[in-house]
């Protein structure tokens, strides 16, 4: 068994300076604990996520990566036994402030799930749903924004002639990109990807990865992945989590070449997990 005691990383040690300018912090977590009933799933995570960058979360199954991701847009609210303590600040506003409306929060923080989950409706209805929820009913505006979202997810050319066909008739990779467009339609500032390619074939995976790299220009991306190569390919920063604790976070190039912690090195080189 590996000794995992050396995980007392403080937030300050996780800070990375890029060049000379202090980078803008988009998401700031301080002392986040998550409990499912009596079980502590996340045991105090402090992390800074930089704006317009891709941060990958890696770690063995059950280490709390997805749980942490779902704290950011409060998707954990739907689990009755789930309790979150600590602070998650987005642009210096606490996500768990009682004044926060989760509906507004989730417009700002979009999410893409592991399994492509389009609604059993047409492509157009799928992508326009988030806009309709925000009271946009003007047909031309909807059409424009749906097109923009579909272009943003690099799927416009493939579906422009079948906007009124069921989204379920598409291939798995296309469905996942429709789901990404659906999240993009409301112009979120942060996008959470929860293992977005684990159900896809390598070609579809490559397209999604390419897309994530492009999205970095506009939005802050957090991605949970089990695929180490994927983390290395798409992310600027990598966070390694183990048993509910954040072991190490740093620039991806550093994590994959010269990690500070032995546990990280062991995981990346495939010695356990």
């Amino acid at each position, binding site marked *: 068994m590996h000794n995992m005691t050396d995980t007392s990383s403080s937030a300050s040690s996780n800070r990375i300076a890029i060049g000379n300018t202090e980078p803008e912090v988009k998401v700031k977590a301080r002392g986040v604990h998550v409990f499912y009933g009596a079980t502590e799933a996340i045991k105090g995570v402090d992390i800074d996520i930089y704006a317009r960058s891709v941060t990958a979360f890696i770690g063995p199954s059950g280490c709390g990566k997805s749980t942490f991701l779902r704290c950011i847009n409060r*998707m954990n609210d*739907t689990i009755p036994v789930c309790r979150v303590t600590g602070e998650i600040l987005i642009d210096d506003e606490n996500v768990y402030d009682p004044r926060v409306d989760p509906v507004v929060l*989730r417009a700002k923080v979009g999410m893409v*799930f592991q399994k492509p*989950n389009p609604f*059993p409706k047409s492509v157009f209805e799928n992508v326009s*749903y988030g806009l309709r*929820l925000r009271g946009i009913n003007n047909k031309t505006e909807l059409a424009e924004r749906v097109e923009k979202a579909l272009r943003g997810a690099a799927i416009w050319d493939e579906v422009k002639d079948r906007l009124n066909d069921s989204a379920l008739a598409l291939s798995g990779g296309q469905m996942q990109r429709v789901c990404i467009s*659906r*999240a993009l339609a409301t112009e979120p500032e942060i996008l959470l990807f929860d293992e977005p390619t684990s159900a896809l074939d390598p070609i579809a995976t490559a397209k999604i990865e390419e897309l994530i790299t492009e999205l970095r220009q506009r939005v802050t991306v957090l991605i949970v992945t089990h695929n180490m190569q994927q983390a290395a390919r798409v992310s600027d920063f990598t966070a390694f989590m183990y048993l509910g604790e954040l072991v190490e976070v740093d620039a991806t190039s550093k994590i994959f070449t010269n990690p500070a912690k032995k546990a990280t090195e062991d995981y990346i080189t495939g010695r356990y997990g």
Partner: protein
Amino acid sequence: MTDISSIPTAAPRAVTTSITSGSALMKRRNAAETRFKAYGIAAIVIALLTLAIMLFTIFRDGTSAFFQGTMSFPVTIDETIVDKNGKRDPADMAKVTTVGYARVLSSGLVAHLAEKGIAVEGMPEKEVTDMISKDAPARLRDRVLADPSLVGQTITVDAFTTGRVDGYMKGRVNREQAERDSNVSVNQLDLADKLIDAGILQSKFNWSFITAPDASDLRPEAAGLGIALMGTLYMMFLVLIFTLPLGVAASIYLEEFAPKNWFTDLVEVNISNLAAVPSIVFGILGLAIFINFAGLPSSAPLVGALVITLMTLPTIIIATRSSIRAVPPSIRDAALGIGASKMQTVFHHVLPLAAPGILTGTILGLASALGETGPLLLIGMVAFVTNYPASPLDGGFLDPATALPVQVYSWASRSDPAFIERSSGAIIVLLFFLLIMNVAAILLRRRFERRW
């Protein structure tokens, strides 16, 4: 630690097993599987056979209830009997009872037979006229009162024959029995044969079996399902509008919104238990609460509907909850993830996807309620009712009525075999409605089914 070089390259040939010659163990295993399949097929064959026997006996005994021996002959509506004053005053004419019309019918039949020269040696006239159902004068009276211009004219009347003569035509009554039966004579059966040959007595499709109210023991030939059908229709309508909103709302709340605590656990356990409570218990509850406490009238479709609602709700809630639960959580995640509220998620995505299951569950719940008898007996819907309930707008839901299964029960408990036949006929009608409901469930399911 294995290394490629450590794998022996020239290992001695291993002992191989033949895949064509089976071992004793395999033979036993395969025999067990074949046996198990045979048990399953046998079970299905037995079930289908039982169903076939049941349907066969019901249709064998019940089909004849839809046909009725009917005599057609000309009748002169004698003014001196039905309208002595000759003023065609409805109030005045209404004073003439069915006894008068019976005389009109009798003389018409006797005259017609004399004209055709049909007679049985030594048969008193009374025996001839007794072959006309006691229900026929009442129908003729209604017809004349509705149209007084018929008075004085000669019209053709279709009059039912008695249940016994009808039974003779259907092969249920023979001459040996007739000798011992005070309700029918051998002479009447001889005359019936002649009337059939002359085309006066025929077996005709009997619409009044479906439309007429129940009738007394003396004239089984006149008994019909009209009131039972209306009562059932009223009840099913009320049950539907009571259970569907209540059941769906309760299920949505329990599945999507309710916190998990001891109270909701208790509610859940109780719903499951309520589904297993014997229906007669709900009947007693209905009697105590709706009739004795709330003072609603007995035998009313409204009370029947309330009792059946209580009984059907658990079934519908269980079916609805399981179809809500069958909607994949990923759909909920997707909707919540783009900022739909809990309620929007439920109404935009979960409910439409659960709709086929909810509808099927509701219709099947209603179908089982359609055949429910026990609780209705206790709230008095087994009463002998001859007046149709009013239309729903005129408070018809509170008028006395019966229901189809109760009618089956009450006919089956009467002594005259003609009622037993009608009981089977009523079962056919009941099965027909069940079939319609099940087909509706299948069609709705097809219509709304979507894959995800």
